[in-house]
């Protein structure tokens, strides 16, 4: 199970004076669904381009299936990465794109592609150039799913898809994944929607990985405490506060770290309300936190350097 599929060490990529990736270290394991989360321009697509040898690192090393992926067909034939802005030949219709993909992926499932196309109501005989944004996304999603590549990247696959189509994608992804396990990387900024799919979460901000942890661990990473201001303050004194909101006499505070059973009881006795923090809230807090501290944190989930900062000045 724990075979590393991707090993990245000290990966940097700069475009002139912009550091798109800054000393990224990363390991992806076999047969897991990863979420690559972060804001627009955080470096998600750049990172995926480096892993698939579509782009070139400025420095550092990338190993995929134990080998360098650049011009390496042994590695490349096991990878599928349809980018969010994927270009297709001008005269191609979706059926042409699927026929092409079938030429290159030995596990290509044409029936799956056709049934997905029906589900997404994709016009198979219209030129891809003329498709709507959502239909264009559907073409990419279908290629990604039907290729059954051992390492599949979905780059913001839901763009322009309506709520029904998005749910459909998530359902079909899970169904196919459970039947044919593989390593899937889902890049997204619609975090709560994909939260339930993810087994592992990587949060990237300003080219740095700020969180790299199992989704299970992250769910207990932060907690929300609400109640009257005085009681909340008393309860949270000395703890790392990720966020504080005040509404009249009421206060809501997001704490870093989980609560022990004793602490939970204490909070209940104080009449405080304890709520879980959604993955999306967590990402937002972590990202803003990293952005506001000079140079950002790259401490991983523990955020050790923020332990000392109890303030809410931000």
């Amino acid at each position, binding site marked *: 199970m724990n075979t590393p599929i991707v090993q990245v060490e000290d990966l940097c990529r700069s475009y002139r004076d912009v550091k798109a990736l800054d000393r990224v270290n990363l390991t992806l394991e076999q047969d897991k669904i990863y979420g690559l989360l972060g804001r627009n321009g955080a470096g998600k697509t750049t990172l995926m*381009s480096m892993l*698939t040898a*579509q*782009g*070139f690192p400025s420095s550092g090393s990338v190993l995929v299936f134990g080998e360098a992926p650049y*011009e*390496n*067909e042994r590695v*490349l*034939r*096991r*990878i*599928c*990465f*349809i*980018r969010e802005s*994927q*270009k*297709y*030949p*001008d*005269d*191609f219709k979706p059926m*042409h*794109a699927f*026929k*092409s*993909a079938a*030429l*290159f*992926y030995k596990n290509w499932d044409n029936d799956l592609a056709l049934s997905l196309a029906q589900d997404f109501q994709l016009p198979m005989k219209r030129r891809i150039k003329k498709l709507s944004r959502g239909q264009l996304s559907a073409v990419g999603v279908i*290629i990604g799913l039907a*290729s059954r*590549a051992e390492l599949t990247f979905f780059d913001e696959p839901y763009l322009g898809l309506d709520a029904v189509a998005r749910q459909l994608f998530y359902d079909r992804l899970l169904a196919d994944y459970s039947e044919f396990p593989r390593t899937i990387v889902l890049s997204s900024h619609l975090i709560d929607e994909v939260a339930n799919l993810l087994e592992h979460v990587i949060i990237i901000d300003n080219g740095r990985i700020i969180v790299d942890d199992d989704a299970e661990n992250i769910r207990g990473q932060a907690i929300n405490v609400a109640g009257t201001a005085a009681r909340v303050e008393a309860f949270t004194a000395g703890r790392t506060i990720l966020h504080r909101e005040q509404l009249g006499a009421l206060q809501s505070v997001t704490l870093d770290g989980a609560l022990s059973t004793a602490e939970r009881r204490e909070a209940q006795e104080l009449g405080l309300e304890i709520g879980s923090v959604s993955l999306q809230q967590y990402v937002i807090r972590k990202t803003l936190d990293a952005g506001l501290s000079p140079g950002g944190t790259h401490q991983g989930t523990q955020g050790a350097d923020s332990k000392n900062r109890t303030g809410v000045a931000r």
Partner: protein
Amino acid sequence: MNRAVAVARMQLINKWTFLGIPAVIIGGSFLFSLVIFALIPSSVGVKYSGAGQAVMWYFFGLGIQSLTLSFPFSQGLSVSRRNFFLGTVGLFTVLASAISALYVVSGIVEKATNGWGLQGRMFAISWVADRSWFVQWFFYFVLMMFLFLLGFWAATVYKRWQATGVLVMSLSFAVLVVAAIALITWQGWWPAVGAWLITLTPLSLGTLAFAFVLILGIAAFTTLRRATP
């Protein structure tokens, strides 16, 4: 299946680009030429048509197209740059061989039928047509490869360095040409150049062009190796 062959098959998924349009151009320009041959009174003797070159210019465009349209897509399907190059250029090599053969055969028929019965000359260009069939074939083939690779390489340069790259490339080429002309003028070499031009045969010109084809091919490949989609 070999992935370079798969690239060639991908380029052929839409039959028009590589097969349909060249066929229409050759067929169309041939028919037009026939009509014009028929319109010209036979008293003028042999009627030459330059329509045979029409499809060659399309190959220049095809070189550009086959890169710009398909390269980013092939990257999405995780095809190596090397296999993309081999598949695409290989497919065109086959196509160019076939069309060159068609030209040679058409030229022979043209001469045998007194220019389709109309004293027309579209395929059997006099300078080339009196050589052996192989030299004729080689000449057409190299010409087509040259135009295709020129387009392909220019598109690769554009892909890697955008408009700046193409501009720099064209400017440096212009500078080279002007420098060569200046050098020849300054050294008083024009008579020698003129004498050399006269000695050129389809075979020697073809061989020279073939050297350029090789250089273009290597340049295109090296540029493509570092191109991003």
